[in-house]
């Protein structure tokens, strides 16, 4: 319990500190706070793996992406606010950015801890409001457009999520009474007696509503804009942690639906949204011109992979899907951080304008290339492991045709990513762009992220396996 209080209190207090004190003090404190929060989350996860009741294993799994990202984003932000702050009102921008970043991290931590279905909706809506403000901070016309589309689409989508909460409540009135508290555990305990039609409809609304936040196609329209136009640390937080938060909400609904009405419906719906996301992302990846939008489409692709894993229903595939959410968070945040360094040095987001990244920025360019290879699904990185688990699970269930389709779409996405990573990273450095970089907090943050990306590919710690197994039992997605 102490750990839970600490992991929420640290970013909350840092939000207030960032408003009150100069950024030169709040910045390092944010970096330190991010690392301390990550340590608290890891300690809580170890307890959950050993069977501690709160937070439960599913919450613990979805806290990990936030730990990875908040632990590194605080460090990276040191470089970001000093380099990318506007020349006018720089200190005000820094303070606002740090305060909102800490508040956003706090809300991202709170969401996976919530098991009250109504509270979960409130938590997700709060993340939308805070992240929209962060996207707007860039002050450009593109940032305004992205923030507008994001808050409008996500809020309307979340309204459907609220319909899901109401329908779930209605389904529970019979067995739980007129005035029950909408706790997830309560619904699970009486799942067999819930109104099955209301549960079915609730899951559909949850998938569409929270799926909008998760970036599942065809509700993904906001995602490339928001990730592309927002500040780089925000893009990393949106892509790695926020999408996972929305997935967590969907899985809580799926867990109830799986008991109440069986796996068939959730499997089919996960397939539909998963394959649509993979298809859309794979082909959009081939024609990207903006480096951050390319990474955003890669996020849609990976959410499609996760949904496909949940749809296959084999234990190996479901475990792979949960692990994939963690691996994606690590690789994507690293890719965004490195892409931020490249765009700052080259002064453009256009892929055509970035050539010879490795020669120009030896650390950041190399790490961007490695993160790109990881996102493309190459060994020895974590994403390769989880994708293989998902596909092997799919083939093992006998869903050959679907597994082949997923494999083919992954191949298209692989080609798209590799094409752009090669284009930006390889070649000689440009004569007009200064080369070389100093080892600082940003490079340290990226190296820290890379250790996780590589580490999860080489070995999955037994505690994490244990945690994933417990989380699988909670979701009950396996058929």
């Amino acid at each position, binding site marked *: 319990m102490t750990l839970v209080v600490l992991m929420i209190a640290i970013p909350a207090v840092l939000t207030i500190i960032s408003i009150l004190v100069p950024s030169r003090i709040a910045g390092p404190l944010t970096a330190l706070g991010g690392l301390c929060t990550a340590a608290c989350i890891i300690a809580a996860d170890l307890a959950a793996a050993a069977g501690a009741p709160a937070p439960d294993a599913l919450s613990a799994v979805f806290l990990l992406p936030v730990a990875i990202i908040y632990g590194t984003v605080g460090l990276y932000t040191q470089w970001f606010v000093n380099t990318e702050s506007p020349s006018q009102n720089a200190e005000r921008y820094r303070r606002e950015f740090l305060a909102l970043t800490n508040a956003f991290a706090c809300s991202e931590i709170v969401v996976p801890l919530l098991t009250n279905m109504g509270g979960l909706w409130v938590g997700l809506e709060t993340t939308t*409001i805070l992240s929209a403000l962060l996207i707007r901070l860039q002050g450009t016309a593109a940032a305004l*457009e992205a923030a507008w589309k994001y808050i409008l689409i996500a809020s309307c989508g979340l309204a459907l999520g609220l319909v899901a909460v*109401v329908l779930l409540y209605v389904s529970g009135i019979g067995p739980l009474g007129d005035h*029950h508290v909408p706790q997830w555990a309560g619904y699970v305990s009486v799942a067999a007696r819930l109104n099955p039609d209301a549960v079915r409809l609730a899951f559909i609304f949850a998938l569409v509503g929270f799926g909008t936040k998760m970036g599942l196609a065809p509700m993904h329209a906001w995602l490339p804009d928001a990730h592309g136009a927002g500040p780089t640390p925000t893009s990393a937080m949106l892509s790695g942690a926020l999408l996972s938060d929305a997935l967590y909400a969907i899985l809580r609904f799926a867990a109830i639906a799986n008991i109440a009405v069986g796996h068939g419906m959730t499997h089919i719906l996960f397939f539909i949204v998963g394959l649509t996301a993979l298809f859309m992302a794979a082909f959009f990846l081939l024609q990207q011109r903006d480096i951050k939008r390319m990474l955003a489409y890669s996020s849609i692709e990976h959410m499609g992979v996760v949904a496909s894993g949940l749809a296959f229903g084999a234990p190996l595939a479901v475990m792979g899907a949960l692990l994939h959410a963690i691996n994606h968070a690590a690789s994507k945040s690293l890719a965004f951080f490195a892409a931020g360094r490249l765009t700052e040095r080259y002064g453009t987001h256009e892929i055509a304008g970035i050539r010879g990244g490795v020669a120009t920025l030896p650390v950041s360019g190399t790490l961007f290339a490695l993160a790109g290879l990881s996102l493309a699904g190459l060994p020895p990185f974590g994403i390769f492991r989880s994708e293989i688990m998902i596909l092997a699970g799919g083939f093992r269930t006998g869903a050959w045709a679907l597994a082949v389709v997923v494999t083919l779409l992954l191949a298209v996405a692989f080609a798209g990513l590799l094409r752009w990573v090669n284009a930006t990273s390889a070649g000689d450095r440009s004569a007009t762009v200064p080369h070389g970089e100093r080892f600082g907090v940003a490079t340290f943050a990226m190296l820290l992220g890379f250790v996780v990306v590589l580490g999860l590919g080489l070995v999955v710690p037994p505690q994490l396996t244990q945690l994933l197994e417990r989380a699988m039992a909670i979701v009950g997605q396996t058929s």
Partner: protein
Amino acid sequence: MTGLHQLTVPEAFAGTIAALLLLVQLALFRSVVLSELITLYAVQSLFVSAICLDVGLAGGELDLILLAALTFVFKVIVLPIYMRGLVRGVSTRVEIPSKVNVLLSLLIAAALVGIGCLTASQLPLKTGAFLPTADLATMLSIVFIGFLVAILRPNAFAQVIAFLTLENGVFFGAVTLAPGLPFVLGILILFDVLVAVVVFAVLVRILVALRSSAATTQLQELVG
């Protein structure tokens, strides 16, 4: 479902309000002036707070009566006044796309109401609600039409109103279908919506300052 002859006064009142809510939602398509849209939102919110009060009084639920009062204060008085202040000095006409005119919009909306009714009729809900099937159909229809308004009206203010009416539909469903939904949650949802509106307002202000108009057709830089 309760037969018409068995309806009590609160039940008949609830049914009437549900029909009026839907009519107001449909009227959003007819309106091309921002101040009219804000008035329609205020009227719809008045109906929502009235039904909240009705359910609260019928069931002797003090928390619902309090929620009705808060809804009235914030959604009928505070938000409309705040929004009227925002649109001051801005072009108040909402463009209607030539391809989907008012008549076609209403036809699509009627089809969405049909889908809402059909979905609700498939769900044999056993709740403490007065008219569970009609309430569910009304909630779904308002939500679907809210989406349609947001899509078909390329104006930032109109889209905010669409979101707010959509939220009114869900709030109506929560109050009528799940009156026991905890009071604290109701307050949190209300608070969240208010904060969202403030953020919407901040963005609209910047949009108007940058482009001298609230037309979202100008927001087409990010594609692909």
